[in-house]
């Protein structure tokens, strides 16, 4: 860890204050081989804000989220999380990932661990917190995502919606400041989508900063403070939900919305 961040792993760069954007992307470029997937994306997320990102398949939404978490390196530009540069070889990735939680489309639970062990694993191994405390927190989180009684079930014994809620609890156990959701309902049955969305809404209402990639337009409109529409690796249009959904000006946005609504 660099000297500047000592003793304040959670609060990021010493010059960062909560009134500045908690996530600040500036002109990021990302290529896989010869294919440029992100072609200069800039966006800011304020603390407590819920940002929804929509766009056609392959437009780079997942890649964008994964960059924020340093799961993939970017080629150019700047990503600041709580003022700390992510695109920096000297970055303490573990410190970053403590601040940023991520939930995936395919849940990606650890299949050999029970639900509660999935939730407890990272706090025990990464934060090295005492077991009793971690377990108490894990039980609270399990009931928060409405899964009391499923603590000792293995992922293979849970429905998709239940697994996804365990995955959310697993991320929350690290007490992140920002949550990234990547199409978390895309793999679910229509009936179970709701239970997951309810959980996310509760989180948002508690003031959690969220970046949500989703195909659920109704949900985005209801929960989002700001909507971004991406296509071809750039942000085509953005705005607050009411304006965005009713007065989109770019023809690409309108075509996309008319297709999906």
């Amino acid at each position, binding site marked *: 860890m660099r000297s500047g961040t000592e003793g304040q792993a959670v609060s990021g760069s010493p010059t960062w204050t909560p009134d500045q954007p908690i996530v600040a992307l500036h002109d990021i470029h990302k290529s896989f081989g010869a294919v440029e997937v992100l072609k200069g994306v800039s966006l800011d997320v304020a603390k407590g804000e819920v940002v929804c990102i929509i766009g056609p398949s392959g437009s780079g939404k997942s890649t964008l989220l994964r960059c924020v978490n340093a799961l993939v390196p970017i080629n150019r530009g700047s990503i600041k999380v709580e003022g700390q540069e992510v695109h920096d070889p000297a970055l303490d990735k573990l410190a970053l990932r403590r601040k940023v939680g*991520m939930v995936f489309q395919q849940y*990606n*639970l650890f299949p050999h661990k029970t639900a509660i062990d999935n939730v407890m*694993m990272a706090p025990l191994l*990464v934060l090295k917190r005492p077991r009793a405390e971690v377990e108490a927190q894990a039980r609270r989180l399990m009931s928060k995502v409405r899964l009391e009684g499923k603590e000792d079930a*293995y*992922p*293979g014994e849970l429905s998709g919606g239940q697994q996804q809620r365990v995955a959310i609890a697993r*991320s929350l156990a690290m007490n992140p400041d920002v949550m990234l959701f990547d199409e978390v309902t895309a793999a679910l049955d229509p009936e179970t989508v709701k239970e997951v969305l309810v959980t996310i809404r509760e989180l948002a209402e508690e003031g959690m900063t969220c970046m949500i990639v989703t195909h659920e337009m109704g949900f985005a409109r209801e929960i989002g403070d700001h909507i971004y529409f991406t296509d071809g690796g750039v942000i085509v249009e953005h705005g607050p939900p009411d304006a965005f959904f009713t007065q989109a000006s770019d023809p690409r946005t309108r075509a996309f919305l008319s297709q999906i609504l």
Partner: protein
Amino acid sequence: MDALWDLLRHVHDAYGVNLVHFYDGFERGRLLRGIWTTVKLAAVCIAFSILIGIVGAWLQTSRQRILKAAVKVYIQFFRNTPPLVQMYFFYFALGPQMPRVVNDFGVPQPMFGSFEWAVLSLSFFAGAFNVEIFRSGVEAVQKATVEAADSLGLSRWQIYRYVVLPLAVRICLPALNNNLVNLAKTTTQAYAIAVPETLFVASQIWSDRINVLEMMVTLLTFYLLLVGVFVWAMTRLERRLRVPGFGQ
């Protein structure tokens, strides 16, 4: 017990079936010591070869080209040369190069005896296969699961130790079983460097007592039992490690 030994003695006298290695206390002791040596040899080699497999598969996930290449050369070399020649190489060629140590009686002796060399050579032999087995298990673990662990902030080693390896082991247990059974059987070739294991003492007994057929039957029965017990134990392990909804 004595009644049984007397019965066997009688069988020998009356029918000529010479089971002297059971009823004679001295021969029985020899045989039991041989069996104990085989069990020890197999157990130590299994432990070491699994360790080699785990470490080797870990090194193959590293980004260091030279390390990866070194592991590859090791695997190909030990997989494609005869285990017996490997053992001779270790014992006869490397053995004399090792420094000598002074034992309790003040007499210099080789640092490793034949048992230790057998352990080394057999472990490296089976370890080469184990690396490949674990690697195939590691490759079969879903990348997305690893990414999830990564995003939770686990270190590279923690991901391997707590996520990848437990899943890989479950995937590759049948192949691992096969290889370890093979290793247990291959311990017989330690005979060639005079490790006093079961085959070695059996051959001593049949030369002393001229009961080749009876000894052979005993020997084969012992090895079938050994393999049987091992397979049974591994099946139980497999069942214990089974996770609902993972794998079949």
